[in-house]
């Protein structure tokens, strides 16, 4: 069935690296958020691949937990973005240095 698991794991690594690159490079808070979602998707792919290789339900359960956590993160994160946009009129993450000492 999964004779190609090395392909899936390499794909997961590539997608994770793309997500990290986006978090480092982009300054738009929403795109940074999307890149975090790319990383979560890559990790989900690795989890499903290992769950299939191991024939266990644990990896699939972890994927469901990750999806729920991603939903919670989206709710809180986007509320914070809307609040910041109301206060400052921008969501460029370089403009936010309120906590800088």
């Amino acid at each position, binding site marked *: 069935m999964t004779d190609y698991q090395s392909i899936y794991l390499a794909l997961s690594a590539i997608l994770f690296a793309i997500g990290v690159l986006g978090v480092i*490079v982009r300054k738009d808070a929403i795109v940074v958020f999307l890149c975090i979602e790319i990383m979560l998707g890559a990790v989900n792919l690795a989890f499903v691949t290992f769950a299939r290789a191991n024939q266990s339900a644990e990896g699939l359960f972890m994927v469901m937990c990750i999806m729920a956590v991603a939903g919670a993160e989206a709710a809180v994160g986007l509320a914070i973005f809307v609040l910041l946009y109301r206060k400052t009129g921008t969501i460029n993450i370089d403009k936010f240095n309120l906590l800088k000492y």
Partner: protein
Amino acid sequence: MELIATLVCGGAAVAAALLVILSRNTVHSALWMVANCLVLAVLFLLLNSQFIAVLQVIVYAGAIMMFIIYAIMMLNLRVSDDEGDVRKSLFTGRFAVLCLFFLSLLILGVGLSPMAVKGDMFPLAVSTIGEVNLIANYIFLQGLCPFELVSVLLTAAVVGAVYLARKD
């Protein structure tokens, strides 16, 4: 045949992820992210986990991404206010990302080593009992505590989001 489908879907996933980063328009980034989620769902199908593929389409592409697109609509952003050319600044973080890429290739090494542990989701059980049944068994027998914690987390997140976003 399966190899061809895997390679095509993998290429599509990488292309969609790159386009998320490279698009100037935030809405285009979000729509490419939807495409990425759908291709990931096809990859889950190719891995024979139909339940996770359905969840991926409904939860990710259906709920979370629509939520993000609504947020973009509320913020009324057309072009993201990145200064400078994104394609040029792509090269600033390349070393860190390269290191991380090789680090995550370690996963590949782990995956290629033989695995002794075998769970109870062998193909015969999946075809007779059913995949959803087996996952539900796992959730309500071994994973009950994390499952309940996730529900508490979701409630807390919704209450927090409503508290943050209300007008005061």
